[in-house]
């Protein structure tokens, strides 16, 4: 059955940051240089082709964009400057907005003004909420203890509340991703055993990003890994140890050591990334979408205010620490609440998931090939 091509799709993708896709004439240099391009996942060429032709439905079900870590080699090798690496990036944005059923993602990606407004709005509401909350039950001069302005256990409760909302949103999107990429295609059944057999890949890719390590240049992987581990460390600290983190003024090295390390990791990598994007030092830093900037700035603010309140608190400047804390929350909440389900940060879920899906799909295809080899269709007499 023929797939209907939509010549207008390229134009749509341009709003997600795609450039020069139509320049590609399929020499295949990009796929030859990409370490991940391996049957059945030919990247980035196949995605370029589907995109040129406007095969929307097929693109929705493609995993290839997620299998790319954007080392940028393909763009460098491209004889026509068709920027395949950036195209993969914009496809990830487009896919993110497709997975997101709320339509918010689409709004954010297509208009930085809307995203910025949303971030500011959420920040303001968060700030106002926590400030009023703090005043209503605590003392702004107390950072910790009985009268603490923003007591750890309450914040902890809020954390979990937010986490559950985010999880629901994220999981719904992940479910949609599964439906597009695996569930919808009735012709290729993936057996349950395949899901179980390869389940280990999910945490492994999440934690190690070992695929990224296969890219020719290792530094982007190290940076990315440090950032990700710092983030996860911080997340764990906040989700489980927020009370101890807030306690003071004595330093509790059991948590603070991790907290400091994570902060250094976060600040170091984000500053590196910002510098890189300004100076365009790396291939994947050459093109920066507005969402990239917002994400980085939020992350810097989150990490910066986090360490600042820590320092202020230890210095005995509790009120300043509390205000910083509110500012901190004003950046944390939009980052988690908006970036994770609807924008750039969502790839923390989609990418490992895509690796996992890719493996089980490939495995299913191999199994099918083995089966069909065993029973050849009889030749016509």
């Amino acid at each position, binding site marked *: 059955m023929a797939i209907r*091509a939509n010549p207008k799709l390229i134009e749509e993708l341009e709003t997600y940051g795609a450039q020069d896709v139509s320049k590609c004439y399929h020499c295949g240099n990009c796929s030859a240089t990409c370490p991940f391009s391996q049957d059945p996942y030919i990247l980035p060429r196949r995605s370029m082709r589907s995109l040129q032709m406007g095969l929307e439905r097929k693109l929705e079900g493609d995993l290839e964009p997620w299998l790319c870590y954007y080392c940028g080699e393909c763009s460098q090798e491209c004889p026509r400057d068709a920027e395949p690496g950036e195209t993969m990036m914009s496809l990830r944005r487009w896919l993110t907005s497709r997975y997101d059923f709320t339509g918010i993602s689409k709004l954010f990606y297509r208009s930085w003004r809307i995203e910025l407004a949303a971030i500011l709005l959420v920040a303001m509401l968060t700030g106002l909420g926590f400030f009023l909350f703090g005043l209503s039950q605590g003392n702004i001069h107390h950072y910790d203890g009985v009268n603490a302005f923003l007591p750890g256990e309450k914040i902890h409760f809020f954390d979990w509340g937010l986490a559950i909302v985010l999880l629901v949103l994220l999981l719904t999107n992940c479910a949609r991703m599964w439906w597009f990429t695996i569930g919808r295609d009735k012709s290729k059944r993936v057996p349950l055993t395949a899901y179980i057999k390869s389940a280990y890949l999910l945490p492994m890719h999440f934690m190690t990003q070992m695929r990224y390590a296969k890219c020719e240049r290792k530094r982007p992987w190290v940076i990315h890994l440090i950032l990700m581990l710092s983030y996860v460390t911080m997340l764990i600290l906040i989700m489980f140890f927020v009370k101890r983190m807030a306690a003071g003024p004595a330093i509790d090295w059991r948590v603070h050591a991790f907290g400091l390390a994570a902060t250094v990791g976060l600040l170091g990598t984000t500053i590196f990334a910002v510098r890189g994007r300004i100076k365009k030092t790396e291939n994947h830093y050459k093109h920066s979408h507005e969402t990239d900037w917002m994400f980085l700035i939020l992350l810097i603010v989150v990490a910066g205010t986090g360490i600042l309140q820590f320092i202020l608190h230890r210095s005995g400047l509790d009120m300043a620490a509390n205000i910083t804390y509110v500012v901190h929350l004003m950046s944390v909440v939009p980052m988690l609440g908006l970036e994770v389900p609807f924008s750039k940060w969502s790839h923390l879920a989609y990418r490992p998931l895509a690796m996992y899906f890719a493996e089980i799909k490939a495995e299913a295809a191999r199994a099918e090939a083995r089966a069909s080899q065993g029973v050849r269709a009889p030749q016509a007499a």
Partner: protein
Amino acid sequence: MEDLKIGVYVCNCGTNIAKVVDCDATIESASRLPGVAIARPYKYMCSNPGQEMIVADIREHGLNRVVVAACSPRMHEPTFRKALQQAGVNPYFLEMANIREQCSWVHEDGAVATEKAKALVKAAVLRVARHEPLERRSVDMCPDLLVIGGGIAGMTAALDLADAGSKIYLVERADHLGGNLARVDLTAPYLDSARDMLTDRMTRVVEHPNISLLLNSEVERLEGFVGNFQATIATKARNGNAADQVATVDVGSVVVCTGYKEFDASRITHYGYGKLPNVITSFEFEKMLREGGVETKEGKAPQYVAIIHCVGSRNLEFHAYCSRVCCMTALKYAHEVKSAVPGAYVSDIYIDMHAFGKGHEDFYRRSSEVKTLFLMYAKDDYPVIRRADAKDDCEMLIEVNESLSGETIEIPADMVILMVGMEARDDWADVAHLVNISGDKDGWFIESHPKLDPVATTTDGIYIAGACQAPKDIPDSVAQARAAAARILGRIAKGKLEIDAVFAEVDEDKCSGCRMCNELCPYTAIEFDAEKKRSHIISALCKACGACVAACPSGAIAARHFTDAQIFAQIEGVLA
């Protein structure tokens, strides 16, 4: 006949020959051969002293035949012929024995090589004894020309030659000049106007005092041979009552520039040409552009325009060859559609993109930048065009098995432009017959040599230029036309046509008129005189291959300088 006095000269070629072949023994054996008056060696026969030695011997000893045993005749035959001529002996009284390339350089054993050298020298001596004196002849070269076809190639050739002073008869079948180019709007890759290009030329042709322009005319008959053709040209009367005019003119050369016709798109049923109103050919689209607007039959601006390449070209069902101009023309259309309907989406459905010419690759890149969607299909796997359903936002849908993605897709279209290929004109065989040239299996006229002589044909004096030889774009047609003009001017400049002394002749006393030979000559040099019932060879056209000589069943044709007697003597010689 005077007594044979053969001089045999064995060259040492420094040590090249003497190192392996025993030159003294060779001379000794040669000196005992019948008719040999003198036999001597020299270090370098081709050197001036070597040649002078031959001249001196001829004068002193009255030699009337010379054998030089040295290198390949392909190297120094002209050198020694000149020496003979200098000494007053017919240059064809020379025979060379190739004892370097065929002896000393290829055999190690001196004794074996010497034996072979002796045999080759003997063959040469026996052969030269049967040589006949031959004279080069020359015939007059008429400087006037006939150019058949008034397209870009024909006009270019005519103008170049007319500027150089020749009288040109430019014969055009239609009532206007310009040929197929007159049907074109802009040209790829620089998007120049074809009209501008033509107007200048057409005006010059019409006004040129040396060009006699014959519109509504056809060549009816061409007789004669290079330098001396007589062409009969019939000109249709303007009004029905008047009689057609027939004129006979003398010309020295003919340039055939009869061009091409476009492929009939309705032969490919998949495209629905003739049934779907908005499936049009490239020439119909050109007409639309020349008239100034891109719109569908319903008068709307098309949102989706699809261009299908290789219509009639590059497939086994119709024509296996590439028509060469369609790829760039299609890209040109992409630009022209975009400029006429800025919001339109252009899909370019091709087999391979042939962007071989100057500026073409760049034009291809620029076309992709204006967001032309390039879709690739495989040869012989035609896209299929169907009417779209009511719910679709387009008029037609084209199903393509897209090769680059491996997907079968449907592309929306409101207008489909079929890039119809070039094919030989229906009456190519008549034209070929008229001027005595041949066409290949597709009807394109065959050139003398595909690489080294792409302008001349196997019939001397008949040249081809433009798309009648093969599909061609404008620069190539113009280049070929100018090349033809240059070739002809070179010959006109000499005034006379030199005819090689070596050619085949029919002995009319032996010819029985069986006509076995008539079809064998690739140069149509053999004429049949129906009244005398004898075949005759036009020596000016003969290239001396000898095919007719070998085939003549009654031995009535002789190859000058390669007669049966000469070759038989050689056979006897090498076997001695």
